[in-house]
């Protein structure tokens, strides 16, 4: 049986959007079975902004799954933001996995990070700052493998903020690709298998791409979609 996944990212809510975002989600239960939100939920990563996000998504008729983005880390209260989102009844992935829809849909993921793409990426070599940058991504990718391994569901979807492939970055300046994603994320998902990877972060990028292993990748950053959310139906034969 098919599952319809709604997804959006980079909604960047702040005080100016309080009470106004929710109407974009009206009727979502008729279009989708679950809503994934791929990070950069806030502008400045403050707890106040996190509470606005929680209020706008609280009590939706479909399950909501978040990951945070780099903006949501800016004020060093990312754990507190995750807590208010969970208190609002939403799932927050932090290099972890969750099973939804009576065990039919598994979602794994987290913020992700950068480093670049195969052949043009940074290495764990040289100064400690460079090593730490690359290690952060490598350790995230390892945790994603573990998270995906833990899922035994009909469908598996990965939710990230940073991109696993460069195809969905087309439109961004190539010089900044290493700050937009890493091939290590795609490599981890290709190794464990998934039906779809959803990410944001690249506002000037392109919606559709694919991993080297053939897993569909969708950049759902709001400026890319220019619509309230995208909807993907898994198992096309039944859609």
């Amino acid at each position, binding site marked *: 049986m098919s599952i*319809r996944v*709604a997804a959006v990212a*980079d*909604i*960047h*809510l*702040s005080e*100016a*959007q309080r009470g106004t975002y929710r109407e*974009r989600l009206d009727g*979502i239960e008729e*279009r989708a079975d679950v809503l994934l939100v791929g990070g950069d939920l806030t*502008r*400045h990563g403050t707890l106040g902004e996190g509470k606005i996000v929680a209020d706008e998504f609280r009590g939706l008729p479909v399950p909501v799954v978040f990951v945070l983005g780099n*903006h949501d880390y*800016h004020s060093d209260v990312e754990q507190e933001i995750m807590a208010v989102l969970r208190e609002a009844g939403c799932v927050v992935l932090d290099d972890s996995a969750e099973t939804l829809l009576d065990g039919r849909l598994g979602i794994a993921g987290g913020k992700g990070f950068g480093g670049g793409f195969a052949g043009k990426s940074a290495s764990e070599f040289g100064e400690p700052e460079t090593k730490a940058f690359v290690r952060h991504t490598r350790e995230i990718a390892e945790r994603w493998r573990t998270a995906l391994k833990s899922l035994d569901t009909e469908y598996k979807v990965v939710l990230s903020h940073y991109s696993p492939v460069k195809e969905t970055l087309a439109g961004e300046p190539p010089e900044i690709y290493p700050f937009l994603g890493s091939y290590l994320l795609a490599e981890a998902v290709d190794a464990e298998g998934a*039906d*779809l990877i959803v990410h944001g972060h690249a*506002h*000037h990028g392109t919606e559709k791409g694919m991993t080297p292993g053939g897993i*569909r990748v969708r950049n759902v950053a*709001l*400026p890319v979609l*220019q*619509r*309230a*959310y*995208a*909807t*993907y*139906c*898994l*198992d*096309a034969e039944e*859609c």
Partner: protein
Amino acid sequence: MDTPHYVAARVQQAIAEDGRTNELGIRVDVRGDHLFLRGQVAGEDQVHLLTDVAREAAPGLTVHNEVTCVEVREPGEEEHL
């Protein structure tokens, strides 16, 4: 007078790091005494704050703010995978 190249870089950095804006995707170009901002942001209030931050980072230049808000349409058709 500063080299336009560095003025543009300074303004772009200010827009990214200033707590009023924290916008990473704004393009900044300087031509003579004129400074141009291009890109998209989430809200109308953010557009005006970009002008404020750019003026403070590059006093003496005329700021032309061509930044627009992201248009958000109805969800539309689903894609079958």
